[in-house]
């Protein structure tokens, strides 16, 4: 075959399906069934399109493994193809638009499909769709029901011409206008593809056994050309290529007639040997049914135009879901097993290092190193002087005793300072002197806490003192007495060690918030006493 071929790319994602499945072809005359195993089938089982054939078909299905998915091919006159452009849309809008269009075109059949076939080249860039449907659902109803009753998962129902596109891809044909012609069980199938895309197909019911069959076939091809022109799919001026798929080598004469009668038609016949060689179908399988080639193409790659409604493919999708869940369980189990095994390997490795003390170990373990280091240390400590505790503790104890000695305070400094100031304050007499070294100042009560009640910790410790004194002699002159006390406090505050001096009590309470009473009688000894209290705080550094 020397026709222009499409570039051949081998990295296709549409690899031939090698999964087991049951392939069924239904036409108005016969039903063919083939069990697809490992990428091919051995032959077809044939059933007549009748009640007897249906009964035999059911018996055949009863023998089939229940999990085998079923793909059904329909070759019927009652079909429709529409190639239409719709405004570009996406998502739910696209689904709604397409569903509306399908309902508009096909009201009486559940077997319908729409496939996006690219975008228009015009400014609007409309979406181009191929709508197709089986307009007579009764044709396959009983056969579909038989499959469902046998609990076989029905994966899809396809029109035969949609499978033909797979033939073009397998043969890598690149003709712009290509008419595929084949003689099937139901008649002559003529499928037109423009730029390798299915545009339209028709089935001519012609009895292949009559003498006029070939001539009738040639007429149908010529009529089809006119039909395409009438549909404005292509003009008569355009070149049309015709590929006669001759699976039983009976159409050689047809090719000659077409070539002779239609000079502007490029005609080629695909012989049985070429089909076997290029499509990969076994010769006995090809001979077993007129629809065998299409069943093989369906087995290799199911087209995207699945006519089956959701309720028909329920079992298949349920099976896929079940398999998906099982696969997920398997993958999860495998991943967890690998993770677990890796973790246990690490645990084993770590434990080997921790616990092993074998001298022959390739690397010396940490446990062994510790034991050796400790033995060396024990040997070294034998040369130490006998000590009640570690060297570190000896050093700490000595340093702590030194620190305590350095932080110990006595009242002597404060007493010395107070004595020195008293020498310059002859009117002041001290009755009581309190001193404290702690985190808080001495309480005005001045009484030491009971034993066992320590000063609160926290904060720097400092020395504080409380002086209870009086002014002597006092003859009722409070102003002079307060001046003497203030002078005493001022002298104390001038001492460099002193941080704070505070008079907490004066002989006379001149606070406006308090009541005040007394006697103004003149004379010595009758005016009471002029007592005061004074708090003295040293700087924390002392």
């Amino acid at each position: 075959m020397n026709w222009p071929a499409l570039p051949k790319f081998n990295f296709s994602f549409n690899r031939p399906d090698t999964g087991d499945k049951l392939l069924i072809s239904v036409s108005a005359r016969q039903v063919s069934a083939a069990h697809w195993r490992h990428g091919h089938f051995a032959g077809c089982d044939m059933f007549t399109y009748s009640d007897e054939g249906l009964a035999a078909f059911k018996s055949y299905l009863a023998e089939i493994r229940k999990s085998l998915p079923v793909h059904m091919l329909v070759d019927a006159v009652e079909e429709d193809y529409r190639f239409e452009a719709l405004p570009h849309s996406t998502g739910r809008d696209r689904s709604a638009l397409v569903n509306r269009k399908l309902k508009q075109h096909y009201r009486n059949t559940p077997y319908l499909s729409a496939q996006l076939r690219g975008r228009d080249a015009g400014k609007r860039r409309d979406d181009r769709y191929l709508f197709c449907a089986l307009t007579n659902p009764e044709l396959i109803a009983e056969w579909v029901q038989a499959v469902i009753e046998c609990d076989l998962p029905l994966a899809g129902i396809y029109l035969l011409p949609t499978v033909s596109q797979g033939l073009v891809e397998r043969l890598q044909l690149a003709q712009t206008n290509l008419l595929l012609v084949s003689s099937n069980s139901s008649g002559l199938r003529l499928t037109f593809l423009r730029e390798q895309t299915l545009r339209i197909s028709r089935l001519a019911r012609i009895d292949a056994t009559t003498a006029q069959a070939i001539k009738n076939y040639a007429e149908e091809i010529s009529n089809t050309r006119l039909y395409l022109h009438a549909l404005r799919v292509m003009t008569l001026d355009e070149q049309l290529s015709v590929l006669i798929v001759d699976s039983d080598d009976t159409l050689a004469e047809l090719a000659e007639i077409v070539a002779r009668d239609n000079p502007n038609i490029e005609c080629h016949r695909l012989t049985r040997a070429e089909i076997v060689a290029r499509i990969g179908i076994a010769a006995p399988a090809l001979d077993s049914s007129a629809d065998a080639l299409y069943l093989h193409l369906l087995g290799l790659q199911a087209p995207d135009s699945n006519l089956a409604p959701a309720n028909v493919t329920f079992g298949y999708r349920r099976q896929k879901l079940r398999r998906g869940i099982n696969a997920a369980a398997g993958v999860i189990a495998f991943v967890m097993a690998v993770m677990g095994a890796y973790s246990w390997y690490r645990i084993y490795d770590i434990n080997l290092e921790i616990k092993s003390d074998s001298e022959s170990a390739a690397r010396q373990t940490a446990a062994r190193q510790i034991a050796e280091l400790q033995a060396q240390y024990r040997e070294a400590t034998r040369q130490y002087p006998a000590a009640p505790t570690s060297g570190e503790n000896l050093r700490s104890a000595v340093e702590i005793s030194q620190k305590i000695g350095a932080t110990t305070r006595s009242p002597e400094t404060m007493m010395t300072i107070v004595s020195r100031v008293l020498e310059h304050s002859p009117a002041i007499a001290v009755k009581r002197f309190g001193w404290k070294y702690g985190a808080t100042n001495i309480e005005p009560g001045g009484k030491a806490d009971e034993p066992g009640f320590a000063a609160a910790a926290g904060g720097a410790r400092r020395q504080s003192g409380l002086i209870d004194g009086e002014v002597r002699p006092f003859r009722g002159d409070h102003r002079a007495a307060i001046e003497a006390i203030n002078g005493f406090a001022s002298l104390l505050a001038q001492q460099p060690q002193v941080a704070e001096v505070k008079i907490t009590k004066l002989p006379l309470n001149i606070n406006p918030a308090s009541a005040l009473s007394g006697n103004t009688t003149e004379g010595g000894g009758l005016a009471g006493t002029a007592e005061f209290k004074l708090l003295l705080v040293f700087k924390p550094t002392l």
Partner: protein
Amino acid sequence: MNALDLHTLKTLRRPLGVLAAVIAIGAILLSYTDGELQSAQRAAAQQQNQLREARIQLNKSGEEKETIVRYLDRYQYLQQLGFVGDEQRINWLDGLRFANRETRLFGVDYQIGAQQPYPYAAELNPGQLTLYQSVMKINLKLLHEGDLMRFLGTLARLGAGLFSVNQCVIERVDAGDNLRNQPNLRAECELAWITLRPPGEKKS
């Protein structure tokens, strides 16, 4: 198929059950394994710490010997003083008695509280050592305020233990007819006797 309607779920009960079981068993096993792995890693890390400490200890063994030689005598002195080890309350009372006699005072009244942790231990950074204190309250009569300082100085020099003065109050007392050798002042002081305990030794 309305994907997950009740009927569908019923038909998928078995594979879903298997999936759930696989996830549950796997999660339990992985959780257990992870726990074991973490435990092993902790043990390995602990062992590495021991190894590091053993190396440091060995490397410092010469230094430690030098430290022992340097501080042992002074440590033993502190033991004799009663600063290290158990409290030596009898020594403290002997010290009070001796200081009273030495400074010719009029007798000392005392009260000693229960031993308790030393509140300013953190300032001394004791490390493994533990510091305690027992607070002693003393009352004594004085001829003049200088006697108190002589008494405290004598008590400190006697080596009865290590103490710090927390608080003192001195007040005049009525000496009556101002007789000689009669106390003029009364002092009340609070002393904290501090002791130190090495690690491993329990309180007696």
